Structure formats: C-alpha cells, structure tokens
C-alpha cells in the first residue's frame, strides 16, 4: 500500500472527525494509506497578509519540517484552510530565500533546516489528477442514484491564484466528482460565494443570512443536498440551519455533505452512526436505496 504523509489539522480531529475517517477509508480502497504525522501543530490559519509579518508563517513551516522528519516530500491535507495556509507559506519561502533563512534561524532548535522542498497536496485535486474521476466511477458500489447536488466550494481552495485548484469563477471539480459517483449536479450562483466564514463565532446572524440565501438558492435550482469542500463551510451551512430555522420558520432544511463522505458512501463504505451524529441535518435522508 502506498503511504502518503497526512496532516489533519484541528477540525478534522474534533467536530469533523467524520470527514477524516471517510477520507482515510476511501483512500484505502485505492491502496493508499494516509499516514498521520507523528507530531503536528496548528497550521497557522488566517495568517497576516502583511509582507513584513513573517512570524505568522512559522506554524505552517514547522509542520512541513515534521513532514521532512518523516522522510517524506509530500503531505496530504483534507481541510481547505490547512491546504491554503500550508501551501501559501510554502510558496512564500520557496520563492524567497531570505524569508526561508529567517524562519530557519528562528526555529534553530529544530533538528532539521527546512529547504522548501515539500509538496503540499489536497485530496480533491489528488482525486482528480492522480486517482482520476474515471477510475473512481469504475469503483462505485452504491450509485448516488441521480440525486441532485449543489456544489459549494468556499474560498480557500480557489484563492489566491497561486494555489487555486480550479477556475475560481467557474470551478467544476466537485461537480465532476459528484457525476463520477453517479449523482446529478445543479448549477447555482452561490457555489463560489462566501459562507460567512468566521463570523460564525461572534455574529451568528450574518452566517444565518448567508445560510438561508445559499440553501434557498440551491433548492430553487432543484438541489436536494449540498456538497462542500471546506470544513468551515460545511459547519456553517449545516449547523447554522438550526438558527436559520429558528429565525425563518418557513425555511426548509437541507443535508450538507463533505466531499469525502459522499466519496466513501459511493465506494460502498458504511455511513456510520458516529458520522451521522456529527451532522445537524440528517444526511442519510436523501439516499433512496
């Protein structure tokens, strides 16, 4: 079995353990073992964009040193934000020797110096480019039976340009995955819009409004469920439906999947009760078989 070093990040170890488990199980079907790093820390999420604020990149680079410690040159991420942070930090030091030296100097207690030689991967483009959707389609055990899905990308896989995995204005990667799994896709204008992001912490209302617009928009186009590629979008769109329903009594709830869950389902992996329990809206309600 091929082994790939795997960096989980905070969310997939806690509130979104179902995303991680479904990904690891799915990859086994393709003879790939996602091997979690022995040691890792916060990816350094939402770092400062200021060019002179280099210290915010230390967390990310430290994780890449961990990858090197395990004698690997690539690391798989499942979380869109972890991917974004690790890859951008990596690119910055790759293209700027001075920054790399500074960061290495700062982390002089590490056994290894970082040489900017790790590739940061994300599972979604890995499925497209390495495993390929046609191969996935051949392995489908339980077809999605023409259920209509609306893709929701979130921002961090598509922006900025340097790390984007697809066309930021008209991405198709999620749609192609859904189609490979036998599902149908509907187009909505909201697929690449903001879910409300971290406003979910202290301005729930903002996220409630976004959730309503996005889910209603998907429903208007005939969608039965949403598939997302970002854990934060998944959380906002799923769990904030509770507050949305409270505010708008006519609001109709809609299940929200992480792409790995749908992949696992399609490959015939059992959708465990523990996975379901981490959702707010029952995800199994849409499966017709």
């Amino acid at each position: 079995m091929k082994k790939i070093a795997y960096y989980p990040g905070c969310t997939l170890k806690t509130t979104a353990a179902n995303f991680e488990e479904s990904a690891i199980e799915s990859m086994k079907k393709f003879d790939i073992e996602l091997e979690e790093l022995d040691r890792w820390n916060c990816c350094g999420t939402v770092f400062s964009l200021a060019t002179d604020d280099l210290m915010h990149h230390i967390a990310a680079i430290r994780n890449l040193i961990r990858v090197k410690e395990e004698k690997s040159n690539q690391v798989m991420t499942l979380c869109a934000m972890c991917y974004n942070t690790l890859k951008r930090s990596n690119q910055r030091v790759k293209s700027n020797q001075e920054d790399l030296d500074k960061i290495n100097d700062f982390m002089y207690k590490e056994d290894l110096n970082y040489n900017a030689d790790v590739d940061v991967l994300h599972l979604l483009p890995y499925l497209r480019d390495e495993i390929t959707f046609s191969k996935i389609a051949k392995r489908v055990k339980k077809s999605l039976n023409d259920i209509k899905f609306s893709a929701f990308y979130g921002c961090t896989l598509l922006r900025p340009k340097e790390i984007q995995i697809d066309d930021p204005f008209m991405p198709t990667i999620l749609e192609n995955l859904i189609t490979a799994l036998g599902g149908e896709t509907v187009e909505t204008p909201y697929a690449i819009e903001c879910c409300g992001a971290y406003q979910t912490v202290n301005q729930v209302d903002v996220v409630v409004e976004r959730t309503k617009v996005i889910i209603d928009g998907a429903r208007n186009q005939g969608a039965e469920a949403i598939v997302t590629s970002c854990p934060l979008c998944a959380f906002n769109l799923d769990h904030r439906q509770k507050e949305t329903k409270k505010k708008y009594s006519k609001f109709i709830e809609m299940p929200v999947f992480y792409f790995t869950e749908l992949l696992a389902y399609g490959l015939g992996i059992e959708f465990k009760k523990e996975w379901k329990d981490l959702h707010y809206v029952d995800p199994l309600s849409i499966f017709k078989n």
Partner: protein
Amino acid sequence: MTENKNDKKIGVFVCHCGINIASTVDVDKLVEEFSKYSDVSHTENYKYMCSDPGQKLISAAIKKHKLNGLVIACCSPTLHENTFRRLSENSGLNAYLCEIANIREQCSWVHEDKTEGTKKAIKIVKTIVEKVRKNESLTPVEVPVTKKALVIGAGIAGMQAALDIADAGKKVILVEKSPSIGGHMAQLSETFPTLDCSQCILTPKMVDVAQNPNITLYTYSEIEDLEGCVGNFKVKIRKKARYIDEELCTGCGICVNKCPSKKALDEFNVELTTRPAIYVPFPQAVPNIPVIDKENCLFFQKDACRICEKVCGPKAIRFDQEDEFIEEEVGAIVVATGYDLLPITEMREYGYGKYKDVINGLQFERLLSASGPTEGEVRRPSDSKIPKDVVFIQCSGSRNPEYYKSYCSKICCMYASKHAMLYKHRVPDGHSYIFYIDIRSGGKGYEEFVQRAQEEENVVYLRGRPAKVYQEGDKMVVWGVDTLSGQQITIKADLVVLAQAIIPRNGVEELIKKLKIQTDEHGFLSEAHPKLRPVETNTSGIFLAGCAQAPRDIPETVAQASGSAAKALTLLSIDKIHHLPIVATVDEDLCSGCEICIGTCPYSAREIDEEKKIAIVNEVLCEGCGSCVSACPSSASQQKNFTDGQFEEMIKAILE
C-alpha cells in the same frame, strides 16, 4: 597626454540637458577627461546643446578648430542624431562624421550615484570617440520613390486615408480582408454624441472610395508578402476566390435568396443571425458582389446543390475560381487594420459566453440598427421578447490587469451612454442601468451627452463593476455594488450588454510579421514616438491609422487617418529619397569568393562578380544589417563606419 597619431581633430560636446544629465554625470569632469586626448581639439559642455545657442556654439567650434569629427554626448540618438548631423552638414562637416554618445537614457536616467554615473558616461563617450576616429565621410545613396500608396484595411480609417491620398492625385491600392469595405462603422446604429445615423454618413464615403479613379480596391484580399523599404516596397496581394466572376455579376441577389444552406453565422450581425453560404455582407456593401463561403456551401462540402449557378442570369458563378496573386509596387503604406472585441467567452464572471442574453456592444448596435436583424426593435436573442430591464456593464475586460486587459478601451463610456439612451427611445417604459468605474467623457460635446443620459433620459448610473451575472429562470441576474452608497445591488435583468475591451484585429499578428513593424504588449501597433510621431511606425514609410494603434473613437480615427495620409503624401511628393549609406563593402584583395555572404543577405544585395570571381555589394539594396560582414570568414566584408577595427577599439575603450 596621448600622442596625436592621426590627423583627427575631434570635438567633444557634452550636454547638461538641464539637470537631466548634469545631476548624475559630472559634465565638467567629462570635459576635463577628453581634453587630455591629443586628437580631441576642442571640448566643452553646455546646458542645452540642442538649443539654438547650443547649436551655434558647436557650429562655431567646427569652423574655428577645423574639426573633422564630432561627438555629442547627450540624449538618445533616436532623438537628436538628425539634429546634430544636419548641423554638422550645414557647418561643412560630413554628417557621418558626427556621432551621438547616449549618456542620458542609457546612463544618467538609469543610475543614481554620480561617481558611478560619471565613470560610465566617460566610457560611453570614449567608445564613441573611438568610433569617430575611424568614421569616414559618406554620401547617402539616392533612390527614386514609387509614387503610389498601399492602404491596408478599409474601415473608416483606411477609407479616409485612401481618399485623402487619392484626392491629392496619387494612386492608392486599398486592400480589405473582408468581402466589403466599411469596417465596424457600417455595423453601428447611431453615433455619439450627435446621434446621427452611422450608415447614412458612412455609405457616401464608401461610394466615393469605389468611384475614385485613383483608388484600386481589392476586397476579400490579404497581404501575402512584403519586400523592399521606404519609397520602394514590393507587395504581393492574395485576392481570395469569391467563386464569382466579378465582371459578369450584376449584384441582383437572386443567388443569395435561393441558396438553401442558411446556417452560417452572420458576421455582419455579430452572430445574432444566420446567413446563406453565398452572401453579400450587408445591403450597401461595396462592392455589391456576393462571396461563396466554402465552409458552408453544399457544393464544396457535399458536391451537391449548385442552385446559385442555375439561377444566375449572367452566369457569373465560378466554382473553379482560384486565389489570385497580384504584385504591386508602392512607396508608402498606411496600416489601418482596426479592432475586434474581446470575446465574451473569456468573461469568467459573466458566464463565459454561455448565456444568450449576455451580448456585446456591437451586437446591441445591431439590435438598435434599422438594418439589423430586428429592424431596430430591441428584442433579446433568447426569446425575442422586448427587454424591460437592461444592464450595461462598462470596462468588461478593460482596466482589469488581473484577468484581462490593463488598458482603458476609451470609447465604452460614451457608447454605453448612447446605448442606454437609444434603448430608452425604443422602449420608453424600459429601465436601463449602467455599471461604470469612472465616466471618461473627454471630447467635444461628450460630457454634455453623458449628462443628458443621466438627467433627461433617466438612465441609472451605478458606480461599481458587477461581480457576477447568472441565469435564474428567464432573467439574467446581475450582482453588483453601488460604491457611492455602499449598497449591494441585485438586478434581475432581461438583457445584459457588456462593453467588451477593444483588442487588435483577430489575425493581425501574421500581417505585422510580414510588415516587420512593432507592437506594444497588447498587440496594438507601436508608433515611432508616443507624442511627436504618433502616426509613424519605426519602419520608415509605414504609417498607422485607427484602432490598429490603440482604442479610439470615430472623429479621432478620421483625424489620425488624415494625418497618416499627409505623412504618406509627404513621402510621395519627393522624387528621390536618401538611402542609409552605412552599407557593406568588400576588400577585393581579401575576398576569396566563397559566397557565404550571399546566403546571409535577406535583401539579395550580395552577388558574385563573375569576372573577378569575388563578392560585390548592391548598395541600393543593402539595408546595412551587417550580417554578411560578421559571416565573412576572411574579414573582406566590412560595414561602413561599423568596421571590425572600430568595434575593436570600442571594446578596448570600455575595458581600459
């Protein structure tokens, strides 16, 4: 002091250029340095050498010190080489004994440290002193001028240029790629700011072009090849087969009506409608002779049909017609190849061209036009309904360096206002919205026109570029923002009109390669000087007009076309032009007749003297590139005033 080994008396003149040179180059030090040279008889610096007193000072020094070599250390030779060479000539010194040392553009302006700048300036001037030491007096080669002009492109720019040149009594060859002259202006409905009908003002000009005895018109033709240089270009024109005998065709149009293949997209209506395989682009086309579009013709594709042939009274259909090649000699060329619009299929935020009711400005012109597919009624393409809410988006693809074009397309502010206004005239109960970044309405009567749209015609102007257009039911939803009020705006529109960026004419790169002229980073033709030589290219004898150079509106285009015509006429009015004498030479004693030089010459200027069995140079044809000189294995070939000996001394001067 070095010993004066030659009989040279060189003058070195250093220009301060105000502080442009003097602030980074120590001009006194330069004078001090070069006064040490034994063969530099005179050296001095002055605030502005190119000024009248500056020139007088040089002239006086030439006479007083009997100078026989001149080095002017100043700005780039592209600016004042001519000035000083003329001065030199007028002061009794051969022009080719005068050389420019560029210590401004390539020294003082690009360096900051004065010590370094001065050091480099000395090296630069030294190389030129070395060159001048061995320069010889040259006389320009005289060549006669072919008194005929070529105009490429017969839109409003090319037509105007051709008419001006023809009216001055000179012959003009006018070549147009499409089947009719007229260009984009023929597609427009009304023109800003006066709202006069575009075709009404254009068609008389088209007829003038067709009837002018001095104009030879080649439509449906392209430039195949160009050789020669200013005054004597040789052009080869490919006259594409129309499959019609132009002499016999009466333009009755029966063939067009009877053609059963009607699926081709109509170029003139910007693909809003279809047309037959045999077609005349539009009713007023000049010439009024149809063309068979091979790709869509049933005969050419399936060897069937031939209906046009059967119905043609004068028997003018010629399925076996072939492309014809015509060779012409001309003295001057005007390039007026025009523009295209950035394809909507590139607009990621506006749906990559997949929505039928998102159209470009030219398509909207056709919807407004009385000769258009809807006869001037505004009906949207998808379902022919009259749209009640129309959104106009400006700067679509312009002013957006991240994804599209960085430049401003210049005419969109005006035509979007015109579109919104004309739409209101056609659909009085409709609503029109214009999204803009800034309104740029510089021009006579332009600002007043925009004010009229805002105040009298109730067009809603919203400051902000929409983020997205998508379809919801039969509406096109536009997401935007009004940055003046800070409001997010969603408009459910029936039709969206994008003011697409203006780009150089599709396929013009091929032509540009043949003409050997230059373009800017966007593919627009480069002018010789952005301010002072705006209608000339860097290749003498080739001039520019219209949107081929940059986006511009009709009045500007016409003015520029007349400017180009005037430049071309200037050239055609003289009998002989002087050809650069910096040509290749052959040392008969050294030449072995190996013929290597012959293969390297792109101008066929090198040949073998059969009697002497050595290579010779045809000075009239030689352009002075020097590639034969560097290829010569025995150094028998040299270039006048660019000899190997001069290069050697210049190299040594830098490395000393």
